[in-house]
Structure formats: C-alpha cells, structure tokens
C-alpha cells in the first residue's frame, strides 16, 4: 500500500496539468491545519486553533516558561507583586502592526475589552481584577479583589490589542463610548503586535498570515514568510496532502493508523507535544444515581481497561497519543506526584467495590457520551461500554456533538453518567485545571461535568489559590491530587500527548528541543520555525 501510494504520488506529479506547474518563488510558506473554527479576536479566543493564532498574531505580558512550569517575560521585562497587586514594566519600542507603539494604555484597554465582552477567557479575570491602570506609558498596574496566586499565569491568556486601531474601527454597540469594542471588525482583522499579521480570514477554511518584519524579537533564519492555517480538513485529506508534500504540519487529531502510515513515508517525521498539561478524563456524574455512590465510581475506575486504551493510542514503539496518569494532575503541573501507582484494570477489585455500592447494577443504566468531533474517542467509549457491561450495568453509548455536550453537562440531571473530555490547563498553573473542575463555587461548565461537591476538596482548592509560596502550594496540590484519586469523580484515563506529523524540512524547535518545550498548545511559534528545502 505504502509503496503504491508513493509510486502514485510521483505519478501525480507527472499527470499534473502543465498550468499547475507554477514555479515557486522564493517565498517560504508554512502550511498547517486545525479543526474549525479559527477565532482571531483575542476576546473570544478559547480553542486550540485560537491559542496558536494568539501566540503568533498577538503578544502577552508573559508567556508559558520553556522547559518547566511557570511563566517567562514577553512584553513585560519585569514585575513586582505584593500578593494583592501586580506591577509590570513594559519593553520599550514594541510596535503594533499599525505602527502604533504598544503602551500601558493598550494593556488596560485589552483587559477591559475582554471583561466587557464577557467571552473567551474573560472568566479568568472577571471579578478578580478590581482595576487596571497605566502608571506611565511603560508601567501597568493590576489591583486584585483578593490575593490570587494564579493571576500571573492567567496573563498568558491576555493578548494585548492596539487600542487606537480597535477604536478606529468600532461600530455601534452596547458598550457606550466603546461601541461594539470593534467586535465586528476584529472577527476578520487583527490589531496585534505579533510576529505575523493576518492577511485574510475565513473562520471556516483558513487564516493566512504574513511575516511582520518589524517584530521586536526577530525571526529564525529560515522562518516562514507566509503561514496558511487551514481549518476542518478531513483526516484523509491531510494524509494525502502530507504525502504529496503539500502540507507541513498536520493537526493533532489524526487517528493512530493514519499517523502510522504517514510516519512510514519518506520526508515525514513525528513530533510529540508532551507539555504535561492535558488530562483525558472520563467524567463521572457524581450527582446522579448510581454514580453518586463512591463505590460505584471506584468500581468503574477499576473496570476501565487502561492497557487497551493505551494500546489503541500507540503509534509505534516510541510514540503514543497518551501516557498513563497517576491522578487528576497531569505530569507537567505543580503537584504532580510521580510516586503514586499507575492505574490498572482489576475486575476483582471492581466487583469488590461494586458489592459495597448501594445500587444494583442491573437496574442502573449508564449513559456514555462520546464527543462526535473526536473520532478516536469512539473506541474508548465502546471499550468502556464493553467493560462496564461486564459489571452488569446496562450501558448506552451516545455520540454527541461538543456543543450539545457542553450544554448537557451543565445540569446534573442531563449530564451523561460518563463522558470523555480532555481538559487542559489553560495557564501554566494547576489552579486553572482543578479549580474549574472541582470547586463547588464555580458555576457548572463542561469542565465540571462531575458536579462534585466536597468540602475537603473545596478547602484545598481555596488554599492553593491564596497561598503564594510555591513550596507550600506544591504540598497542597499533592494532597488534593491524592484526595481526588480516592474520591474518583472521574476516571483518569490517560494524559494526552499530542503527536504532530510534520515534514522533515520543517524544524519546530519548541517541540524538538525538550528544554524549549512549554505548555501544551503554546509550542507552535512560527517565527522560531525554519523551513529548509
């Protein structure tokens, strides 16, 4: 098959009509893809593609630290904090794509805009920041409502927009003097300072970006001149484009079979993004019978087939799309405890726990939702169905689109008994993962599909937030990790390790140099990449 595909690929070159043999000029184009849609408005960005876009079109005060937890300076040169307020010094001479200088006022404007529009990552800041002010053009100060340790990390989600450009393009809207805060315009234009600027935007098909030559940090020698970030390509399309050399980096969601056959082709390599911040959780609805009984939940965690799951995710001897977990915290976050044992399937223990459960499995049906957008998860859902049925539960698997899951899970009555959801720490801090998942104070969202209400967990979560000493925080999160392991609000199925398929000709330093790798999703920095033909 492989041989034939290659022979055919060369046949294609021959068969390709003459008019298509357009001589390629010296422009270096980077072609990659992600699932739709691509959102380029910083106040709305949330998803995987959005994060990549933000990292390249905009800049933030700080960036996730390379090679370990925490943050490093980007627009900010230094900062001070007294626990309740943070003051940042900005780098001088940074220019927006418009040519306007980037100042403290722009930072303040960006924060206000995000909070006012109330979308995207606004929840990271809304209600926590009392005020933001420009002390001088290069100094900005944030005052918090209460001490909040994860604030610094949260700033990786605050791209700075060009206030003048946004206001010049505002339309009528509900934000008073700010009109619509440039919402309409910003959905197809950028107002950033990043290394690349938007040339064209179609949220359903692609964003085209070109180099911003005046970028303050410079570029790798062979950095791409142009980037085409495409959305919604089907797996076989990506596979064909890759093997024809018409695509440079594939998205993370290809089935293992496809990655395997691509890896075997010439000129193609695999890169793993192991930022250790994404957990694949089978979220169990702890507010609905029979899973409101911890023993029933524990029975399921023992019945889950971890081995086969990892086998399904394996690509070859050295790479897999997942590694085992030891608790709810993935390996790259503060509080990860490498001394805890791996999870293993144990049907005897499962039956033991089931015997202690107050429900009779035969009369307790279990609904498993499978998120339609991620085909690979079907196998895991079906695997669960097979295993849980062995315990005697009547099990139903429902393929559900993400939009619907994210709505269903907000209510305990409608949330499925089990749903596999990947949750990534959106900032390099364990709080951004666990607080949203398990605090009973947070209004229910897809991240908290477990609907856990536990006093001890709440207490530890609050402690982790307010404590500023890193050593003490680590102890708190280790204990939290252990507690959650015993409460089993979710089956901690595996830690997601994304496998990128890339052309040999493309170098991605953040993925290929362990010391440069950072938080999942923040590694595709175009200006650092190089394309050598």
């Amino acid at each position, binding site marked *: 098959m492989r041989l*034939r*595909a290659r022979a*055919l*690929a060369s*046949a*294609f070159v021959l*068969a390709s*009509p003459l*008019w*298509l043999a*357009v001589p*390629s000029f010296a422009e270096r*184009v980077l*072609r990659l893809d992600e699932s*739709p*849609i691509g*959102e380029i*408005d910083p106040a*709305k960005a*949330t998803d995987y593609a959005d994060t990549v876009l933000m990292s390249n079109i905009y800049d933030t005060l700080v960036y996730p630290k390379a090679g370990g937890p925490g943050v490093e300076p980007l627009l900010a040169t230094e900062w001070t904090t007294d626990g309740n307020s943070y003051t940042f010094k900005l780098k001088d001479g940074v220019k927006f794509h418009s040519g306007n200088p980037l100042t403290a006022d722009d930072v303040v404007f960006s924060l206000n805009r995000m909070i006012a529009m*109330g*979308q995207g*990552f*606004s*929840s990271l800041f*809304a209600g926590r920041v009392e005020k933001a002010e420009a002390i001088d053009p290069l100094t900005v100060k944030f005052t918090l409502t209460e001490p909040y340790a994860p604030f610094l990390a949260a700033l990786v989600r605050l791209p700075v927009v060009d206030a003048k450009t946004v206001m010049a393009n505002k339309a009528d809207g509900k934000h008073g003097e700010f009109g619509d805060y440039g919402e*309409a315009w910003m*959905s197809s234009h950028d107002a950033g300072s990043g290394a690349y600027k938007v040339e*064209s935007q*179609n*949220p*359903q*098909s692609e964003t085209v970006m070109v180099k911003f030559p005046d970028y303050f940090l410079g570029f790798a020698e062979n950095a791409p001149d142009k980037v*085409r970030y495409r959305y*919604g*390509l*089907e797996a*076989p*399309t990506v596979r*064909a*484009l890759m093997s*024809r050399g*018409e695509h440079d980096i594939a998205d993370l969601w290809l089935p293992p079979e496809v990655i395997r056959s691509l890896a075997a082709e010439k000129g193609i390599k695999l890169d793993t993004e192991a930022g250790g911040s994404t957990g694949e959780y089978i979220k169990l609805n702890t507010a609905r019978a029979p899973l409101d009984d911890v023993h029933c939940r524990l029975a399921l965690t023992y019945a889950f087939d971890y081995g086969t799951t990892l086998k399904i995710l394996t690509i070859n001897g050295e790479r897999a799309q997942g590694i085992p977990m030891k608790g709810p915290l993935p390996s790259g976050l503060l509080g990860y405890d490498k001394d805890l044992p791996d999870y293993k399937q144990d049907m005897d223990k499962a039956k033991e726990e089931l015997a202690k459960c107050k429900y009779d499995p035969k009369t307790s049906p279990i609904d498993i939702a499978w998120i*339609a957008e991620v085909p690979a998860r079907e196998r895991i859902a079906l695997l669960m169905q097979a295993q849980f049925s062995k315990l005697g539960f009547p099990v139903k698997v429902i393929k559900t*689109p*993400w*939009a*619907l899951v*994210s*709505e*269903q899970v*907000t209510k305990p009555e409608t949330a499925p008994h089990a749903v596999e959801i990947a949750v990534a720490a959106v900032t390099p801090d364990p709080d951004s993962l666990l607080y949203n998942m398990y605090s009973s104070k947070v*209004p229910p*969202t*897809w*991240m908290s599909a477990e609907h856990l209400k536990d006093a001890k967990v709440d207490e530890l979560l609050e402690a982790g937030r307010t404590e500023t000493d890193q050593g003490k925080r680590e102890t708190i999160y280790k204990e939290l990790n252990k507690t959650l392991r015993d409460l089993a609000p979710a089956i901690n199925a595996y830690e997601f390790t994304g496998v990128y398929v890339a052309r040999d000709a493309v170098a991605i330093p953040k993925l290929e140099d362990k010391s440069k790798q950072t938080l999942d999703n923040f590694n595709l920095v175009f200006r650092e990449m190089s394309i050598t033909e």
Partner: protein
Amino acid sequence: MNWTSIGKRLGAALVVMIGISMLIFAIARVMPGDPARIALGPNATAEQVAALRAERHLDAPLPVQYFEFLKALSRGDLGKSLYTNRPVTTDIAQFLPATLELCIVSAIVMVLLGLPIGILSAHFRGRMPDHLGRLVALIAVCTPAFVWGVILQLFFGYFWPIFPIEGQLMQSTPVPPHVTGFLLIDTLVAGNGAAFLDALYHLVLPATALAMSGLGQCARLTRSNMIEVYDKPYVEMERAYGFRPFRIATRYAFRPAFIPTLTILGLEFAAMLGNAFLVEKVFGWPGLSRYGVEVIIRKDLDAIVGTVLIIAAAFLIMNILVDILVGVVNPRIRLAAGRG
C-alpha cells in the same frame, strides 16, 4: 410566461416561504437545550445567560419571538452565528457563492452528460448503447452523493491521483480579489487564466459526485421522453423527408422531449442544494452546506434558520426560473402569454 403569471408565482412562493420560516422557526424553538447557554459558551455566568435570553426575547412566547424574528429579517438581520461569532448574513454571503458555484457547475455537468446519454439511449433504443446507458443512469440514481464522493476520491484522488481531493484552489495559486465570490468569475476578472483553470480543475470531482444522481435522472427522463416523441407523427415526417437522424435526435425530437425534462431538472437542481451537504463534507468545500452541517451539529439556531431559509429561497427561485425557461422553450406557452 408574462409578468402577471410570474407575479402570481412569486406570490405563491412568498406564501410558501412564510410557511417554511414558521415551520423551521417552530422546530428551532421547541428543541431541547438553552440557546443562550450554548451561545455564550461554557464559561459564561448565569447572569450573562439571563441577559442574553432577555436580549433575544428567548423568554417570550413563540408568536412574539417569531414576530421579532420577522422584524429583524426585514432589516436584513438573521441574527448571529454561535459557530463563527459573526452575523449569519455575513456567513451566508461568504459561503453561499462557493455552494452555488458547485451546484451550477454540477448542473452543467448533469445536463452535458445526462442529455446525451438519454438521447443516445433513445436513439439506439433496445440495442447495446441503450442497455449500457440505462444501466449507467440507474446506478447513478441509486447511489448517494457521498458514496460517489468517496469512490471518486478513492479512485481518482488516491489510487490514480489525477485530481485534487479537497479545496477550491491549489495552495500555490493566489486567491483572486473578492468581486463576486464565485471563483470562476473572480479569477477571470483578475485576468488570471491559470487560477481559473485551477479552480475548474478542483471542481471536477466534487461537481461530478454532486451531478451523478441528477445526471442519471436526467438521462432516464430524456430517454423516456425522447422515445415518446419518436413515436409522434412529426418525427416520422422528418424521417420521411430525409432529415439526418443526428439532426432529428439533437434538434427536432430533442426539443419537444426537453420541455417536460426541463421541469424535472429544476427539481434535480434543488435536490443538488441538499446533496451539496454531503459532497461539501467529503471534499472539504468551504460552502454554505458545510456551514449548514456544522451549525446543525452545533445547534446554532439563528444560523440553522438562516441557512434553511436561504436554501429554500434558492429552491423556489430556481423553480420559478425553470417555469420561465419552459415558457421560453415551449412556443405554445410563449405565444399564449404574448397574446394574453
């Protein structure tokens, strides 16, 4: 067809459009789930959700909501898509041309291949070319568009890769400046012949996959109508007067046979608008249909209502156009209208 009858048809179409808007609106509003919650995304607070519910009149009774919807519609406002975070009209304006372009090219393929197959079948009635033509037409009709898509892709995109399998242009082809949104036209306006050919080249597989079912139907209808016409006295007269068989087949028997076929072709074109949903998915075509699938899966209410309304409108307009065309082709109707 004169202005009065066109006016009447438009009136009837309007009644149907209102019916459709009510139908789709009702379906959209009785579905389970809170559109405001879905709209705001998972991180929104309860207050934000309530505010949006009020803003969009989601708590008002259905007729009031419908009235608000009509009011907005009259301003050309179809609401906001949750999928793209943009006004639905912006999305439709951006995605509709690609779908229409695909459907129109498919319709051309359907006619250019379907008619000759039907004509040949009828001409060689009961002989080998006829059997072959009928079989091809039947298989074309019996196979869903997505199966054609998958099979064409497999054979002409992978096993014998002579055609592109996705998208509208090669990545190396510069996208022409937006004039009409129809790539075939925009590339020509930009004076870029290579890009035009590239766009055409990318249309081959999806347009063929989409055309297949209509093509089969077209061939079958043409054949049976032609056979009926072949039994008419005027065809015998034409043969008795030494008209060339080819000229009879392509002109004298064809035109009367084409009139009833044309009516059905209008329906087939409309069916294409539906089947485009399948084909655009297979070929990653950035059109309205793919948008439609995405918004339906995401329960993006405003976008669903907008998409369905636009497609229904296109369907109705198409049918009226076909009626007008039938009038033009059929002298009886044309002359009768001229007199009335």
